[in-house]
């Protein structure tokens, strides 16, 4: 195993060129140590180096679980749209462990702010390009993740960042699968269209209200009736109709600063944001959706070039 001094030159053991912006929506905040941009002395390549953060009780609990899981999974994934861990590197003491990863100039949130002018919407072709990347990465993860169907279900209610959290999780449903991820992708789709998070709840209850306001209250839905009666819920939710069509205008040219959205695109968006997780489209099926096979062809977003 290579020692950190391959990147060395000062006492900090790695060359710290500049600090990368912090990652945006992470699943387990605790694991995120600092990410550095560094040059690999052996190959001259620029890489991102993330130092694993250790809690003070490291002596009690050993290597942090969340970091251990994240590293293990990332090492077993291999997809062009998923950041790959090139190798693990250790320093002189056990609390110095680094992940060497491909370096990207920015994350999606930074890209949304940059673009060809912060308020200019992405072109339809660019949105499509990014959506395909996200969905095919997710399809890959899902196919691998099927291997880990059992573990850690209880903890995961809390893991997804609130704004991207599926409604069933907000109702403490603890048994779920990849549908919670496709919900998040639906949120990102909407966000790419208007360059702003679409469901910015201030707390769990507010998040639920925002979801029902945008998508309508699931009054006539088998899944929700079952869930609510199972939980013995007597709370009555205000009846809303779906606001989705008004929020995301189809076939209109950016009066509101929204990216152009084809009817196919709208259909995909509403299938990703299906309140009923059983009816939510899977990443695999989304990739086969007519949104990708018809209409404008995809194009690499401007911020890449």
């Amino acid at each position, binding site marked *: 195993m290579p020692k950190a001094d391959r990147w060395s030159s000062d006492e900090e053991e790695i060359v710290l060129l500049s600090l990368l912006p912090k990652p945006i929506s992470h699943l387990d905040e605790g694991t995120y140590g600092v990410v550095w941009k560094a040059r690999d002395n052996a190959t001259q390549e620029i890489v991102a180096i993330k130092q694993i953060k250790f809690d003070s009780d490291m002596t*009690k609990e050993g290597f942090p679980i969340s970091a*251990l899981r994240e590293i293990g999974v990332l090492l077993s994934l291999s997809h062009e749209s998923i950041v790959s861990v090139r190798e693990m590197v250790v320093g002189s003491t056990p609390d110095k462990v680094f992940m060497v990863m491909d370096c990207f100039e920015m994350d999606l949130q930074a890209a949304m702010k940059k673009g060809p002018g912060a308020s200019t919407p992405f072109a339809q072709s660019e949105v499509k390009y990014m959506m395909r990347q996200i969905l095919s990465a997710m399809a890959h993860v899902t*196919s691998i993740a099927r291997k880990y169907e059992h573990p*850690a279900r209880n903890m995961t209610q809390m893991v997804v960042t609130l704004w991207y959290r599926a409604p069933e999780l907000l109702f403490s449903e603890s048994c779920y699968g990849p549908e919670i991820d496709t919900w998040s992708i639906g949120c990102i789709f909407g966000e790419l269209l208007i360059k702003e998070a679409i469901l910015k709840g201030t707390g769990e209850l507010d998040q639920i209200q925002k979801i029902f306001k945008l998508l309508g209250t699931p009054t006539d839905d088998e899944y929700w009736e079952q869930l609510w009666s199972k939980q013995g819920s007597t709370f009555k939710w205000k009846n809303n109709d779906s606001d989705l069509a008004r929020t995301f205008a189809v076939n209109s040219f950016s009066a509101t600063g929204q990216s152009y959205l084809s009817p196919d695109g709208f259909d995909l968006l509403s299938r990703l944001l299906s309140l009923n997780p059983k009816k939510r489209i899977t990443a695999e099926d989304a990739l086969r959706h007519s949104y990708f096979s018809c209409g404008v062809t995809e194009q690499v977003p401007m911020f890449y070039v």
Partner: protein
Amino acid sequence: FYEMKQAMMNAHPQDNETVGSMIQEDLYSVLAAMLRQEEEYECHDYLEFDDTKIDETCRTKMTEWVFQVVDCTRLQRETASVSMSYLDRFMCTSSPTAKKARLDRKEYQLVVLTTLYIATKIFEPFAMDASLVSKLSRGVHSEEEIIALEYEILVALQWKVNGPTPLQFVNYLLELLSTSCQDKALLYEHS
């Protein structure tokens, strides 16, 4: 077995008939990906190494012990087999403790405990405390020893802790069969 798997991979899927929730073609590509992955998690027969004092009986005893622990604590049996795979891979490395453990059964037992500790961390909803693991050894090994060895093992395995397991192969191969769900559940149980 490997050749059989290869043959299955080469046999081209005839149709796109949906098997379970997954399309046959996807199943083939997942299996192919797992086979590629497996090569990175290779291991040798360390019982044959010249310097080893660990024999089959010893490893069998340890395996039985690990499965006993897992059954008593209601962990998944899969966790036990993952932990055994860490053990076998680690024992083949030139890490100092691996070398020692090939000569010293007490040390070997420490490695067994620690790999089980790592596997539960990754695959179980609730991890065991290092102190509990120490108790499992009836006080022979301390928490500090276990945590120090955890780090050594992770370094030696290069943090590759999510390799494909035989049970996962079985699971996917079963999905390729067109038997009824009940039969599949039964077959899975028997595997």
